[in-house]
């Protein structure tokens, strides 16, 4: 089974700022990490490979330093990694990003399964995985919480939605986006970490994957961030309730009642 896992580099902190000009997150000088949901996608890919054999390829689109996240994927056990990096891809929204990633999947060739985390913790859109499936015209199952069965050409998965859970059969090739419930991601071993440090990571540009310049970058993005603002700071303070336990409990109930509609 040839499995592509899309991994994104995201800020490892909530203390981020937004560039007033570009309306995008300032990523320079910020601690970075692999998008936590992608670690579950990667683990699921590795588990499938352990069961069926084949190959796990980590794919990321981003700046040169996104290579660090790909090395993390290699350290965990991915067989190889590809970085999609091109100035022309800068400013891509989720539509253009999923288009570019789908072109990379096609370029890799003979892929059976694309795995993504349900969403990235910086953008929070949950659109890229479904976007890749749409561009590839492949079936998809989103918010997958359990892989019930896997055969060479069909997966049986449980997916979560507002009203409960569905059990779906998905024919391969397909795209899955996964939830945290699906597995427990492994921690890289020292052996894996050392090997990942020297592994070659090919960098593909837009022309190499055959991307239409009109469909990538800012110009190829149908959505625009018009304005951004930080949410209002929450009014946090500590209230100390003195007195006996029963008196304090009564006070606490009063406070809670005044703040929420019970």
């Amino acid at each position, binding site marked *: 089974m040839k499995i592509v896992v899309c991994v994104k580099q995201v800020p490892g902190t909530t203390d981020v700022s937004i560039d007033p000009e570009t309306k995008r997150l300032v990523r320079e000088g910020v601690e970075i990490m692999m998008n936590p949901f992608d670690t579950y996608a990667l683990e699921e890919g590795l588990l499938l490979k352990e069961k069926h054999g084949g190959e796990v390829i980590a794919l990321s689109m981003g700046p040169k330093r996104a290579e660090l996240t790909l090395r993390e994927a290699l350290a965990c056990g991915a067989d190889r990694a590809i970085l999609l990096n091109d100035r022309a891809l800068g400013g891509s929204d989720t539509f253009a990003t999923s288009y570019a990633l789908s072109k990379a999947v096609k370029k890799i060739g003979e892929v059976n399964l694309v795995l993504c985390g349900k969403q990235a913790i910086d953008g929070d859109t949950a659109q890229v995985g479904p976007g890749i499936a749409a561009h590839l015209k492949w079936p998809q199952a989103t918010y997958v919480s359990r892989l019930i069965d896997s055969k060479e050409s069909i997966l049986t998965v449980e997916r979560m939605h507002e009203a409960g859970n569905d059990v779906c059969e998905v024919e391969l090739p397909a795209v899955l986006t996964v939830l945290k419930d699906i597995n427990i991601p*492994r921690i890289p071993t020292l052996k894996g970490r050392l090997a990942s440090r020297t592994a070659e990571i090919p960098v593909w540009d837009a022309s190499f994957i055959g991307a239409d310049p009109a469909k990538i970058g800012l110009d190829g993005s149908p959505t625009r961030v018009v304005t951004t603002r930080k949410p209002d700071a929450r009014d946090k303070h500590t209230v100390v309730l003195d007195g006996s336990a029963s008196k304090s409990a009564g006070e606490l109930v009063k406070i809670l009642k005044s703040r929420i509609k019970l």
Partner: protein
Amino acid sequence: MNIENSIKRFHVEVLPPKQNAENLEERLEKFADRYTRVVEEDYCACITDNAMGHLSFQGTELIEELELPVKPENVMIHLNTFHTKKDLDNILNSCAERGIKYILAVTGDGSPRLPKLRPLDLGINGLESVTSVELLNYIKNEYPGYFTLGVAFNPYEPEQHEFNKMRRKINAGAEFAITQPVVEQNEAVEKMLKEFDIPVVVEAWMSRKLHLLSECVGYEIPENTEYDPVANLEKLMKNYPDCGVYLALLNYKRQFPLLKEMRSYAGR
């Protein structure tokens, strides 16, 4: 060596490199050097397990990858409950294969990236979470006779609670205990020595980073407090002559060479 004599000596903390270390090769070299020095001096090298929840490499994989020598009496692996069952078994199997004798079983510090053992992983029903007690039970049952198991004792916890926990730990197979850092003398440690008939190792805080010590002991020690780690170590050796000493955050350049003389003086 019997357990009392083996425990009554210097236990030197050797911190493994963190997973995200930039200069990993350099860190590995430093780890190998420190480990080797500790083992060669016939002290016990104590390798921590993701201390404070920081993602680090495992002692067993470091020993294997760096081809470090193992003297069974001279290596202690810390093992907490933040592992998958598969990783836990891998660590224990590796310890057993290498003849590592001492395991310190602790509940440990978690982090979002670290998986937590679930009771069902250890075949336990009707329990909410796995603590060092369940971990001890598991090791004792699955690896009978392989290891000498130790546990942590926290003299800064409410006494009754900590003593009850200690009883449960001993019933589950604990054969020695290591305290949290002690500054000079501690009443709860003395009571514990009287109450429980197991060898004890008292922890000496060898760093001047008092904010970290405050975190360990659970009360605020002002940064401007005069604290001499070596003087404290000497006092601990004097106050607890029958105990081993665990040296946390030891300075390998300045403090390590002092240990030789102190050992011969104190018969450790």
